[in-house]
């Protein structure tokens, strides 16, 4: 009886594993249960993130399910009560030995010239489980080797053991089944269809998955041997999704980026842009020295070219910067200084620049976005959802650009949630996207009319809106109101203004107040930059300028009195000559601001332009001073992803020349202007963020460095979605540390060398910025810390410091419930210490502008980005350059046929801003009356057409023969 009760309440399955009883989860595979309990069963085809297939037979072990022991594949068999598993029996060992001998029959054993040698699961497992020598004396099979199956991936079919990992990944995970098993039996090979390359945005994952050296990445091939690699954990900043990665270098050059399996974010995957963009960091075109415009050359703007910018020393560059800023401060005044950009920066960099702008430069005209996102209040002030929450929701409303192009791994996560989990996807977009095949319902809106369509959807008034869609509208409306709803919110098109999208979000929130939002802004650390206050009217920690003024006035030397301009305002003001000093923080408005002609006038009209950048871009070429900044992999700190998750970056290599981190540039600029930002290391910046920024309170360095912080920590009190009962994690994830390329064994030397979460070198420990400010800051920190526990600048041991931080965070959390905090220990008046300000809540203030009436001669322009574009990262990564598709104009065939235009012919496209010649691409997926041009492709394109002052941009198309305009 008692036994029955026990049976009824028992939630685990008891299995005898190598003679000891273990508890496994119901439905768990034997191989996974064994691994969780410290017993490693060798495998090639099994991967915890993909369906088991039992292809390779390597994991066969002796299992007794009640009918006597027998050899069974442990990756195909779920645990059962009373099951006995013997992974060490003589029979098991003989079987595994035999399987390996078979796998090696056709394997060329060319390990000495194979890139995988040294980190190869086939090598490792042959050593551990296989035969010492082969009995096979016949001829092995031969293939041409290696063959390129895409621009990025080489395939060596002789080495392949046919484990089905790459082909399964392509089909199950990426949804791009462009590689397949071809032929049969002994002739089976992996290959593409002839002349149809494996052009998936996720092809690099197959290289990481491959358990042998059959798939090789072009950027890594013959670059290094695994035992020469050194690696750190980091976070990818190619987009804002924040994939956790291992960053590997050899001889002070980045050579490889590998995805790390972090359950709430990337689950081991990365996109190819993120995987291979490290080439840009190694580029010979990186800036290693400051540049100043020679006095002989054109002063600014028109005709600026790189020859006019001459290399110089930091001190001369600083003199020019101080002179330029000084003049602007004097006349017309500090409000004529503006800071554009900052999404490339780390959180620490962004905070330093935010503090510098507000408290030393005394301007609030700062904006990390370039008029190509959403109003900062909307991004910061809407109720938030995590990525997991979006995947677990009943319905996701997609009001965003093409996620496959802009946030590829978010596309993978949502795709998986749809295919495996039954998530309902309602897509509201001006044109079909990569997500459309997975949408339960797609609703198209005419550019400029998003707000009306969404309002009709949420109110259930299905009859309104785009014609012929009433059925789709009704179904979409039902799904939205059905249950938990997460809205993925971004800017679907740069050719329409952001306000209608904000109004649409407001309409959703108004009708369905329980809705939470996941941002789909794509630029690197744009969310961290906004959180750090790199937006007008917003102070660090997601508080408004007014709400946070008293709090920050306590800790900062000064806080601006009134709200400044956003990017559109700054650019418009600069074009009118009202910006005396423009600072570009890794910003390239000529490439990224939607309206290029306005951006061009702005750069010409700005008085003095300072660019802080890693490359000479179209915009920084026109600057008066260019300061070289360290970039990805060259500095530590933290970054924040779309859901507000803060995760760590680490330095792996040194920056070229005298390039330095942006926070250091900010600190020195402050010091040279007679101020002091008060920090001398990245860690000190983070401590100040944690102390002052309300949304980041409690995210201590100790927590970020702990096992918990390995996944990153959600800022702003957003809760993690509970237990992940779904797929088992990669091996070794229970003892945090980065797995090797396969993650197949905890003892893999590559997987642990320098990678243990607790032993990674702290890159910034002991780093001193050049010049005096660090010392000043350290002294200041030590002097001003009185009793607050922050005087750790001189504490030698990291361990002690971390322990300190844990204590502080515990303390802080204790008092957090009572609601009262002190901003700093540094000289505040204790008697009237302000309360920690509450976070900004956004609500719609002004209604969006209405688009002009429809005009039968014009097409409404839709413009969004592609994964590979004319951006700095792609254009400086040689492997990625050929992948940018180029600008074409996609138009519905019905709109093209009156002109007698066929695919490939040239069209003249004109708008109020200009005219460009583009190749025509008839596309029935584009609704009639719209025209699609990808943004920021090489050459003239969308930015030359978009009028950012209009609600929508209308274009007219003409055949070249009838046109009198310029031809390329």
């Amino acid at each position, binding site marked *: 009886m008692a036994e029955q009760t026990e049976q009824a309440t028992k939630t685990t399955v008891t299995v005898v594993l190598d003679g000891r009883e273990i508890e496994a989860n119901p439905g768990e595979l034997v191989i996974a249960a064994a691994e969780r309990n410290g017993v490693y069963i060798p495998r090639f085809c099994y991967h915890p993130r993909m369906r088991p297939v039992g292809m390779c037979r390597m994991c066969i072990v002796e299992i007794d399910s009640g009918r006597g022991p027998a050899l069974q594949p442990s990756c195909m068999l779920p645990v059962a009560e009373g099951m006995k598993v013997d992974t060490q029996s003589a029979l098991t060992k003989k079987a595994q030995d035999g399987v390996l001998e078979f796998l090696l029959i056709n394997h060329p054993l060319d390990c000495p010239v194979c890139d995988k040698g040294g980190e190869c699961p086939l090598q490792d497992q042959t050593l551990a489980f296989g035969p010492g020598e082969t009995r096979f004396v016949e001829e092995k099979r031969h293939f041409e080797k290696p063959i390129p199956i895409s621009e990025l991936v080489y395939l060596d079919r002789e080495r392949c053991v046919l484990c089905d990992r790459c082909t399964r990944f392509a089909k199950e995970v990426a*949804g*791009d*089944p*462009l*590689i*397949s*098993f*071809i*032929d*049969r039996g002994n002739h089976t090979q992996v*290959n*593409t*269809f*002839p002349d*149809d390359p494996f052009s998936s945005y996720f092809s690099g994952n197959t290289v990481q998955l491959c358990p042998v050296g059959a798939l090789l990445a072009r950027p890594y091939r013959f670059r290094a041997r695994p035992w020469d690699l050194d690696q750190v954990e980091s976070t990818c900043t190619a987009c804002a999704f924040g994939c956790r990665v291992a960053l590997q270098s050899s001889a002070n050059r980045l050579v490889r980026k590998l995805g790390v399996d972090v359950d709430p974010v990337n689950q081991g995957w990365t996109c190819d842009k993120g995987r291979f963009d490290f080439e840009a960091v190694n580029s010979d075109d990186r800036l290693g020295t400051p540049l100043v415009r020679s006095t002989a050359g054109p002063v600014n703007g028109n005709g600026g070219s790189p020859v006019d910018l001459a290399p110089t020393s930091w001190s001369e560059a600083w003199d020019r910067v101080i002179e330029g800023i000084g003049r602007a401060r004097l006349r017309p005044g500090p409000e004529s200084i503006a800071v554009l950009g900052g999404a490339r920066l780390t959180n620490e960099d962004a905070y330093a620049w935010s503090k510098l702008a507000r408290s030393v430069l005394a301007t609030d005209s700062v904006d990390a976005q370039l008029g190509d996102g959403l109003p900062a209040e909307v991004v910061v002030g809407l109720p938030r959802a995590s990525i997991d929450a979006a995947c677990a929701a009943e319905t996701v409303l997609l009001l965003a650009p093409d996620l496959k192009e802009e946030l590829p791994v978010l596309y993978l996560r949502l*795709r998986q949630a*749809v*295919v495996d989990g039954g998530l309902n*996807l309602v897509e509201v977009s001006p044109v079909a996207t990569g997500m459309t*095949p*997975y*949408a*339960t319902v797609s609703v198209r809106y005419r550019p400029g009319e998003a707000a009306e369509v969404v309002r009709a959807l949420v109110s259930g008034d299905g009859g309104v809106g785009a014609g012929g869609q009433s059925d789709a509208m009704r179904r979409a409306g039902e799904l939205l109101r059905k249950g938990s709803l997460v809205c993925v919110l971004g800017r679907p098109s740069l050719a329409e203004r952001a306000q209608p999208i904000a109004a649409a979000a407001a309409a959703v929130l108004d009708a369905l107040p329980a809705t939470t939002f996941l941002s789909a802004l794509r630029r690197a650390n744009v969310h961290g930059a906004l959180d750090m206050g790199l937006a007008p009217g917003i102070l660090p920690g997601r508080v408004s300028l007014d709400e946070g003024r008293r709090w920050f006035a306590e800790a900062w030397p000064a806080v601006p009195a009134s709200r400044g301009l956003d990017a559109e305002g700054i650019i418009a003001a600069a074009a009118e000559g009202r910006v005396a000093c423009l600072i570009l923080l890794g910003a390239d408005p000529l490439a990224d601001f939607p309206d290029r002609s306005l951006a061009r006038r702005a750069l010409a009209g700005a008085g003095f332009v300072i660019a802080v950048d890693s490359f000479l871009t179209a915009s920084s070429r026109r600057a008066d001073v260019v300061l070289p900044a360290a970039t990805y992999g060259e500095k530590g700190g933290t970054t924040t992803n779309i859901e507000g998750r803060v995760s760590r970056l680490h330095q792996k290599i040194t920056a070229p020349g005298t390039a330095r981190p942006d926070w250091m540039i900010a600190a020195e600029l402050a010091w040279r202007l007679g101020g002091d930002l008060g920090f001398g290391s990245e860690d000190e910046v983070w401590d100040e963020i944690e102390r002052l920024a309300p949304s980041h309170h409690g995210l201590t360095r100790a927590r970020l460095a702990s096992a918990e912080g390995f996944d990153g920590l959600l800022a702003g009190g957003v809760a993690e979605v509970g237990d992940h009962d779904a797929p088992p994690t990669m091996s070794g994830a229970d003892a945090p540390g980065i797995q090797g390329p396969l993650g197949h064994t905890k003892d893999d030397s590559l997987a642990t060398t320098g990678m243990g979460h607790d032993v990674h070198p702290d890159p910034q420990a002991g780093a001193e910025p050049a010049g005096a400010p660090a010392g000043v800051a350290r002294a200041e920190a030590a002097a001003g810390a009185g009793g607050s526990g922050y005087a750790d600048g001189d504490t030698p041991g990291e361990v002690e410091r971390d322990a300190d931080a844990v204590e502080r965070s515990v303390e802080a959390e204790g008092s957090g419930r009572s609601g009262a905090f002190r901003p700093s220990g540094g000289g505040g008046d204790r008697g009237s210490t302000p309360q920690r300000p509450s976070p900004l809540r956004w609500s719609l203030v002004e209604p969006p502008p209405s688009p002009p009436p429809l005009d039968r001669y014009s097409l409404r322009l839709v413009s969004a980005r592609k994964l590979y574009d004319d951006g700095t990262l792609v254009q400086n990564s040689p492997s990625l350059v050929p992948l940018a598709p180029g600008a074409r104009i996609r138009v519905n065939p019905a709109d093209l046929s009156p002109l007698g235009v066929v695919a490939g012919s040239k069209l003249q496209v004109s708008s109020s801003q200009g005219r460009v010649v583009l190749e025509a691409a008839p596309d029935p997926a584009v609704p009639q009356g719209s025209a699609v041009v990808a943004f920021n492709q090489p050459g003239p394109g969308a930015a030359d057409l978009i009028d950012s002052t209009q609600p929508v941009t209308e274009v007219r198309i003409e055949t070249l023969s009838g046109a009198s305009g310029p031809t390329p």
Partner: protein
Amino acid sequence: MSRLSPDNEELARTIIGRYPRSRSALIPLLHVAQEQEGWVSRDAMAHIAELLGITPAEVLGTCSFYGMFKLEPVGRYVVGVCTNISCLLLGGEELLEHCEARLGVKAGATTDDGMFTLEDVECIAACTDAPCLQVNYRYFLNITHDQVDALFDDLRAGRRTDEVPVHGTLTRVRQHVAPERWSGHGAEGLPLPPGQAR
């Protein structure tokens, strides 16, 4: 190398409509393509992929798995001579050598006039009537060298075409299935899971 003809495309759409999931029609469509050309060309595979909403690589993966789908042009008549154990004991090897001499090509090759492709095949399940061969999968049992000569002469002269249709000719995929017997998931049937092409 060509795509499916308009008639065959029409037939393909009918066949696709018979299945709950369109990709189930893959093998029947490959047969249609092979019937059209005598072999399955790349263009035909690409066309089938388009019709089914899958990738050409997936079509090739399936197509190349089956030896009866020919990925290279073959003769009008594909002659498969069995040399497995029963036939071997009763003169299969000699039969193959005779065919090679008679056609002037080695096993695996096609005659210059494009009439015959000769294959050395494993057991074709007619051991009781060894030696045997197939022409376009039609059996010729207990066959003698003289009978082979006569058969080749007849085929070359355009005789016995009822008995041995040209390579690729099918009967089964052309069967008529009344619409009321189509699966409920057919052309306009039940909705499919998201991401699943019809």
